[in-house]
């Protein structure tokens, strides 16, 4: 992993146990660094649904799609920073300092078109009867998926493929290096302060 720091978990546990004040100050600095990406990602959230998708914002309550309705405030509030350990991936790496997009419409807006640029295939075109599963489009309109993705791409100006994104991932990729440097600086300072204040533990 390119962003991996060896021994980070052990260092954090030492800082936390030995000098809690310094640890908290360090976390504040890291939060400030991550907040830049968070604010940047929030600016990428549009205040209105894409032109041609106005009904996305008018889903009625107690319906199936209400959970995914376009809501800018929910999308913005769903963009959060995380200083905790995330779930371990297949390669035994965990995210320590992350930006999260947790709202359902935000996630849809973030990655729409990443897997299927033209929308999920229509089950009628796939010649499969009663195949209303996640692998196929849920709409009766065969072009609905493509229309949806095109509208979003036009509004955001970002074409998403594979691991790319429009909100959190885009903002993170823009400011990754700067934020990473700030986080490492905070870690170094906290480590240095803790180390100098505990000379008896050096040996």
């Amino acid at each position: 992993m390119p962003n991996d720091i060896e021994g980070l978990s052990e260092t954090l546990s030492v800082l936390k146990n030995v000098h809690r004040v310094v640890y908290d100050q360090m976390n504040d600095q890291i939060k400030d660094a991550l907040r830049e990406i968070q604010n940047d990602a929030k600016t990428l959230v549009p205040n209105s649904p894409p032109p041609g998708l106005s009904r996305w914002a008018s889903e009625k309550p107690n319906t199936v799609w209400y959970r995914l309705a376009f809501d800018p405030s929910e999308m913005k509030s769903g963009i959060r920073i995380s200083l905790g350990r995330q779930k371990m991936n297949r390669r035994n790496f965990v995210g320590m300092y992350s930006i999260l997009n947790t709202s359902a419409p935000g996630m849809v807006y973030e990655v729409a078109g990443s897997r299927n640029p033209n929308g999920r295939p229509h089950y009628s075109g796939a010649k499969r009867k009663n195949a209303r599963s996640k692998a196929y489009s849920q709409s009766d309109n065969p072009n609905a998926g493509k229309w949806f993705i095109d509208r979003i791409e036009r509004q955001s100006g970002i074409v998403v493929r594979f691991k790319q994104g429009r909100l959190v991932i885009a903002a993170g990729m823009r400011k990754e290096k700067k934020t990473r440097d700030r986080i490492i600086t905070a870690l170094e300072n906290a480590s240095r302060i803790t180390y100098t204040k505990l000379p008896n533990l050096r040996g």
Partner: protein
Amino acid sequence: MAVKSGQPAIKYSIITAFSAKGINAAEKGLARLRKSFGKTTLAQKLTFAAIGAGVVALAKKAADAARQQDKLNKQLSFTLNNLGYKTAIPSVNRFIDELERQAAVADDVLIPSFNALVRVTKQLTDAQDALKLALDISAITGDDVAVVADALAKGFAGNLTAINKLVPGLDQAAIKAKDMQAIMRQLNAEFGGAAINNLDSFAGKMEVFKISISKALENIGEGLLDFLKGFTKTNSIQELGDAIENIGLKIGDILRGLPVLLKTFFTQLENDMKQSFIGRFFLSAIKKIGDAFTTAADKASETGRNMRLMRGIGWGRLFDIAPAKKWAGTVDPVVKKITELQKRSKLQELFDPQRNQIAAALTRNLTAEQRALVQGLEALRNENVDDDEAYYNKIIGLSAKSALAQIDDQKKVQENLKTTLAGQLADYEKYLTDAREKAKYASANIGGTTVTGPRALLENLGVPSSGLQAPAMGAITPPPPPSSSFGAIEDPATQVRNQAASNPAAPPVTVNVNAGIVGDQDFLVRTINNYITMATRNGYTTVPAGFWS
């Protein structure tokens, strides 16, 4: 804000860290397995059994090779004896040995082949030539030497079918005529020298090496057999094989019981050394040396560990350098231990009733002496002796001080009493004077005559003018409450009337009170009565002589 576990989210991690959780779990499991494997005797058994089995297998293989060689030699000797070549046995053996090295074919193949050939040809030279030819044919065709030699032997016996099948292209006329010599010439012309040429290749050299190994094994086996013969005093090879297996088992048993042997040896040695003075002396010296070695090893390991950690940490950049893990591993247990101890001591305090009682007592409002006593009890619980003495001195001093304070308090009480009494007397005199002044304005109608002054007051009160006498305790009725209405004092008049009723000779008394001084008079009456009561109770006489005059 933290995201709940399991909540779906798209994340972009700026910093990631390697989590050794899974790897550590796997390593821990393996270490545990290794530890348990090391603890069980099964591991020792398996190890020693493997060693023993290896030794036994090697010895058995060597002995088998030697036994097989002996068997072949005996077969060949038997054949040569029957053919009358008893004296040629050593030369035949030397021939086979050389042929084995030259052609890189084992003698357990050559000897049966030569045996078969010499039985058919009845001539040593023919058999030797045929065997060499068989080796050459085998080198070219790739067939087994034994098969080719068997085919040649059959050919010498008049059956040429096998050799015809093995080597196509032979002269059919010679085969039909069963002319083995012609066939031998043709075969020599076609295959002669092939076996020697084949040895120049790598495979051929490897074959030579294998032969050398096999010969070495046979030699070892022969030596082992001779060695075992010397042990077992038997000439039977079968018994020798059994003896080898028994020796392998014995070696395994010895290795298996080696710890017991060493432990028994050292225990016995220690017991024996304890028996004598010199032995005990040496034993103590050995123990001291051992302790010194242990201490030195501990010290050296600690120093080495410190050096290792100091070398690795540097200026404190903990992460992205490997020793940070070690440093963290050193600090973490210490912090955990301290935290545990703190928690434990706190918990122990909860279950210390005496300490709780002392703490509860100290929270109350105590005198200095009581507080010092409680604190002295707390000091007794400590191991520090100095504070015990300090609290002892403090308590003794406070006790003496409190005794003096009590005496002072008593004196103060007495002084206060004196002051109070003096004040009361002064008040009494003052009020009496005041009463005398105010009594001038009292008036009473006694027997139709209006009387004013103290006499009138006393008349109103029903007190004889000759002077007040000290009434008995409790005989004095409390003064009546002041009248709420204006201008009427009933009680003194009632008293006068009652007095008149009790004395019929006396004229009826009519009291006319000046309205202007009614309040003062009433107050005066009550005041006098009160002070008369108080003075009587305190042992004073009543009005001083001449007061009313």
